[in-house]
């Protein structure tokens, strides 16, 4: 205390320099951003500040969505879209995880496939759609193939990166206790790679939605993509935005589902 008096004016609290760099959950903020943007559009279109040719009125889009719902046509478009998404993504992610694990475990597979994956990754899969139509026909299989192919490459890259990051100490431990190769892969490598695989899944499923729309723009009668294409060619902006809204909701839903999967599967990480 005596020191405090002695130094007088030169005494001050140590300036705080820590904190930050640790974003935490803030409930409702995301929703507030959405609501604010929609209200802005609504106000703009009502006051005439935004012309109805540029942007449809959000309330009209909502009315279109409600109409779609009550007339039952929503399911007519949503069910085929969701089944294409599910089948394509399951094939692509399944093969991708298997291939990624193999690349992570076997030198020859790695040497052989990593350059191939690097060559396939940057190819816009949409550009290959006509090719897929020739290979698999104009019906469902070409749509499955496009979505599967598009989710395959990011899943492979995420998976083998995740397998590379599995603690080698744990694998040595498994060997030292005489665990079989298959037990080590199933009980040590796969759970250890799960965090990386799941974060890869977020990216591949978003890509799957993009490709779903692309696939449905060619040779589909029903589906969200077909609906949007039809509305676009008629310049029916309300319908176009209703379709886009459905896609966005789908994206949010999938992201939520992956988040739930992470919560359950990665409980051990806290």
């Amino acid at each position: 205390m005596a020191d405090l008096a002695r130094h007088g004016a030169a005494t001050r609290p140590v300036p705080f320099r820590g904190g930050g760099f640790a974003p935490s959950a803030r409930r409702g903020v995301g929703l507030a951003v959405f609501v604010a943007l929609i209200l802005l559009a609504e106000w703009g279109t009502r006051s005439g500040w935004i012309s109805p040719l540029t942007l449809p009125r959000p309330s009209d889009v909502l009315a279109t969505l409600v109409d779609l719902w009550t007339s039952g046509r929503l399911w007519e478009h949503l069910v085929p879209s969701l089944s294409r998404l599910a089948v394509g993504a399951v094939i692509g992610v399944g093969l991708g995880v298997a291939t990624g694990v193999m690349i992570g475990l076997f030198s020859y597979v790695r040497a052989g496939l990593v350059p191939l994956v690097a060559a396939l990754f940057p190819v816009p899969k949409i550009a290959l759609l006509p090719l897929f139509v020739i290979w698999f026909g104009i019906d469902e299989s070409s749509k499955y193939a496009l979505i599967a192919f598009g989710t395959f490459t990011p899943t492979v890259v995420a998976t083998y990166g995740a397998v590379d990051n599995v603690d080698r100490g744990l694998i040595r431990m498994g060997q030292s206790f005489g665990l079989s190769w298959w037990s080590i892969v199933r009980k040590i490598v796969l759970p250890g790679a799960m965090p990386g695989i799941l974060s890869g899944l977020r990216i591949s499923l978003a890509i799957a939605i993009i490709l779903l729309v692309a696939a449905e723009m060619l040779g589909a009668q029903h589906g969200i993509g077909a609906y949007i294409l039809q509305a676009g060619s008629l310049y029916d902006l309300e319908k176009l935005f209703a379709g886009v809204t459905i896609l966005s909701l789908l994206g949010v839903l999938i992201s939520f589902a992956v988040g739930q999967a992470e919560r359950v599967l990665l409980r051990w990480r806290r």
Partner: protein
Amino acid sequence: MDLSLQGVGHAYSDLEVLRDISLEIPGGRILCIVGPSGCGKSTLLRLLGGLEKPDRGRVLQLGAPPAGCLNPLTFVFQDFALLPWRTVEGNLSLVLEDHRLPKAEAEQIIADVLARTRLSEFRTALPRQLSGGMKQRVAIARALAVTPAVMLLDEPLSALDAQTRELLMDDLVALWTRAPFTAVYVTHNLAEAVRLGHRIVVLSRRPGRIAEVVDIDLPLDARETGSAELERHQKRLWSLMRDEARAADAELVDG
């Protein structure tokens, strides 16, 4: 079951880490291996446990492992090596699952080793909820679960603080006194070596050779930290190692 090393030498590409090691590991006793950092003590342990192949010489298993032994050569690692996604009992059952034991038998083994390591109430805890000392007790329980013929302990206490280390040394002494096991214990901590070792092997700096073998006849449960006889042994070991350790410390790792 005894282990025997005959003229073992090992190198990592150009870096020779062990040269001409011949050593007998007798059953029912704890053999400590000490030496300056980088002298190849951990490599020696991995050679003994079959995790690496020696470039020269032979590592031999003398006699058959006792009946009921599920994994004759069993490691305890410095970093515990517990699966973070499995609970305490899950980590124990991991090493039993491949043996296809009847469910009741596996359950009984788990309950028994948890009781021996005083972990019964933490059965369903995840590793992240446990302190370092408890994690290492889980790893020791896991090693005991497979009733090893030889336990290979690779600096098991080095990641722990001094108090926890003392407590775990007491635990190890109590476990050994109740049911003597064969162990090879690698450490750079001379206090641990004189407390737990029936025989202490001093390695020289890289390439590691056997510099000295010291036997301590005092029974384990009669040893207390700071007793005059242990102090004397520890001093002697340190005088053997000091110059080697200093020289090792001044070397570049990549040589």
